[in-house]
């Protein structure tokens, strides 16, 4: 009898742990069960990535559609080559769309926003973004403004 009670209570304890783990996974880190694996990769070259980092957000019209895989320096062009992984449901991004680095709020984190083009063809896995817009650098902006150029 006591043995059985112990078993049940310990079972509940483990369940509580699993529940808390699920909470941390789904509600806190926003892991969605379906998304795993089904992404495709495209590339974008920027002259300045600013404070962009891996795991950053990639969004269209404010909705997250993917994330940043990695950022590397291209040794031939001296540009930053950013690898993006996009959810495979969003497979109809027009081929002439532009990738731009934006900041959420004034001091928030930076993310990549895809502004939609008008091409009938869509980006295929492994394609490059044709047009990109680099991070807005406030410091440079101000110095440009001050020197009147």
């Amino acid at each position, binding site marked *: 009898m006591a*043995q059985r009670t*112990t*078993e049940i*209570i*310990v079972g509940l*304890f*483990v369940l*509580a*742990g699993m*529940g*808390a*783990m699920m*909470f*941390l*996974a789904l*509600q*806190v*880190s*926003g*892991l969605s069960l379906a998304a795993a694996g089904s992404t495709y990769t495209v590339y974008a070259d920027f002259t300045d990535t600013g404070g962009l980092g891996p*795991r950053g*957000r990639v969004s269209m019209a404010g909705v*997250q559609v993917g994330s940043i895989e990695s950022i590397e320096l291209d040794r031939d062009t001296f540009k930053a080559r950013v690898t993006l992984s996009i959810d495979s449901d969003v497979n109809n991004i027009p081929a002439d769309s532009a990738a731009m680095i934006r900041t959420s*709020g004034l*001091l*928030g*984190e930076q993310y990549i926003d895809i502004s939609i083009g008008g091409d009938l063809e869509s980006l295929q896995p492994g394609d490059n973004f044709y047009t990109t817009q680099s991070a807005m650098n406030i410091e440079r902006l101000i110095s440009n403004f001050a020197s009147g150029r």
Partner: protein
Amino acid sequence: MMDAIARLGKNTLDFLASFGRASQFLLGVLVGVPKPSVGLPLLLKQIYSVGVLSLVIVVVSGLFIGMVLGLQGYTILSDFGSESAIGQMIALTLVRELGPVVTALLFAGRAGSALTAEIGLMKATEQLSSMEMMGVDPLRRVIAPRLWAGFLSMPILAVVFSMVGILGGMLVGVEWLGVFEGSFWGNMQASVDFRDDVLNGVIKSVVFGFVCAWIAVYQGYDCVPTSAGISSATTKTVVYSSLAVLGLDFILTAVMFGNF
């Protein structure tokens, strides 16, 4: 001068000797895994007394720490007008640091000291010795289930702590101070990564669980079987566990989150 050097040498040797004994002891415990039919009920009983009974203190502390984080975070972040980042702040501090560390400290105080005292008393009343004379290895019968129970309970307690803390932070931030609930969760989800933050936090708590349980059972097993010996062993358990947890936390954080 020579005395000081000699004392240092002696202390170092003593430390190494006791660390060696503790490792040998650990090996003895881990090598002999009892049959499931015998071991499982013993393990369940220990998970109950080590884990389940620590749940209350963990939940209450988690709630209050989360609420304090909510309050403090709000006052600081509202200076920058970014109080919606409060969710992210609470979640990251809890999941990465406070969850595993505070749970381990509470565990050392609540369960670790109890384990040491229990084993020490069993030693003092010759229960371990009589078990040995009955041809039963107390390392397997008494120590191993307690070690495993601590090891298994800690991650569970830590994730429960983090969850309750986040909910407590939400209670203060969203319900009381009026942060928009959507941005509370949204910011949190955007910045907390499951693998890098949540799983690393769990790995930390697994390591802490192992170290705390090891220290607790070893101090109990190795104590001088008198009342003074047991009380000093209990103190040692809490002090050593806390120091080990904080030191290891630094190392683990550097390895996991540091950019080298």
